[in-house]
């Protein structure tokens, strides 16, 4: 059978876990916190250590960040080994991955999704658009960055952010 042969040939695809950049005292630049949310990993809820279920919200993204989020859960990066998992419902989620600028049509949907996520929760703004509107700043359909609409706990810069950068922030929450 072809599948058995390829399983045996490929073996383990997942790359070894990279060292954590946030292990030191100072929080890293690439996971810079929004000033109002407090600083450092201590502000992230301790209840989410070891297990983080994520719901992805596309608030108006170009789908570049979606491809990178998809790559995080691919066999190469394998974010699941750090305890992160994508789920189907915000009610099951502990964290929201929000991508893209917040468009007018998605403003209420984003607020409702955050309200539907049980506490303790983290909101992670993924990508330059979600942080400061990126390319789309000032466009007529854009309400603003994610932090203009809902409180944000962590941010991942990049256009699009590489999977390692997203995973570093996820590992900061799960502590693994």
């Amino acid at each position, binding site marked *: 059978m072809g599948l058995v042969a390829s399983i045996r040939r490929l073996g383990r*695809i997942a790359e070894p876990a990279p060292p954590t950049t946030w292990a030191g005292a100072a929080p890293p630049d690439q996971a810079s916190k929004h000033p109002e949310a407090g600083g450092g990993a201590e502000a992230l809820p301790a209840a989410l250590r*070891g297990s983080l*279920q994520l719901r992805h919200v596309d608030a108006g993204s170009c789908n570049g960040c979606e491809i990178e989020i998809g790559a995080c859960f691919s*066999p190469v990066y394998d974010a*699941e*080994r750090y*305890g992160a998992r994508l789920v*189907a419902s915000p*009610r099951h989620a*502990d964290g929201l991955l929000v991508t893209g600028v917040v468009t007018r049509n998605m403003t209420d949907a984003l607020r409702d999704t955050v309200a539907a996520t049980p506490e303790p929760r983290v909101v992670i703004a993924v990508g330059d658009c979600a942080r400061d509107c990126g390319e789309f700043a000032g466009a007529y359909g854009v309400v603003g960055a994610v932090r203009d609409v809902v409180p944000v706990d962590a941010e991942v810069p990049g256009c699009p952010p590489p999977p390692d950068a997203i995973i570093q922030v996820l590992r900061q929450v799960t502590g693994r």
Partner: protein
Amino acid sequence: MSGGTEVYAAQAADGFSASGAAGAVLQVAAVVAGAPLVIGWMRQVRARLEGRAGAGWLQPWRDLRKLFAKQDVIPRGTTRVFTTAPLVLAATSLLIAAIVPVVTTASPLDEMGDLFAVVGLLLVGTVALTLAGLDTGTAFGGMGASREVTIAALVEPTILVAGLALSVPAGSSNLGAIVESAVADPGAVATPAAALAFIALIVVVLAETGRLPVDNPSTHLELTMVHEAMVLEYTGARLALVEWASAIRLTVLLALLANLFVPWGIADAGSGVAGLLVGLVAVAAKVCVLATLLAAGEVFLAKLRLFRVPELLAGSFLIGLLAVTASYFLPSPS
């Protein structure tokens, strides 16, 4: 296990033994603690075959611990049905874990709960969850409930029929008695009837516990969900109970499947502490092997189209029916 056939005969007469009671407590504790580990192990096997590192077999326990610490959100407009369904599901699952011969065949509840009671209890849990799915009033809740009922209506008769085929050589529908007769007469397991019943039971266990190819437990796509669609609105401790109970159902059904066909090692009414421990180790090993095979098999399977699922289940019912026929017309060689 240990020598004690006279004791066993005396105690079986009044239907209660200290060893059986201890075994029942032990098997409920083992199933409660071990069910999330079975799920974690299956995910780990799957991850390794996919070339991933995997979250580790303790991950479901981490998830449950976290869920119990989370806020419990009860959606506006839901009634008591929504809040009590996880408790009903968990209670029936625990009761099944106490009745079914997992570690010992001499559970004190075994007298009351035969094959029909176990199927009924499975259905009570399923119906509670489908009602909760309807109670949320969401599109996906209702859709999941309707699908689950469709599948349950086809699954329950198959369990009954396949169980009936196995109960013919034992002369009893009591699950403990069926397993004991298989221990006493291993040749009875190697009949055409038992082989057919085994195939039918594998299919219904997959369908009942929401595994591939009937339902994909790791799907994020609401339109293809069955079990997940009903529990989309649950949060916190209630979600933890639902997931825990689903894991318990899977573990108990795998253990039952293993013990019906490979009963060796299971403790009986005459077993001492050593016998119970052997029973525990034996069932853990059997469930581990079955879970590994199931997880490895799932890598090769795609989910069936929903309208093909009744065909699969009708096929397994037919095999179950053939098993009953064979058990009457092709008696075991003994």
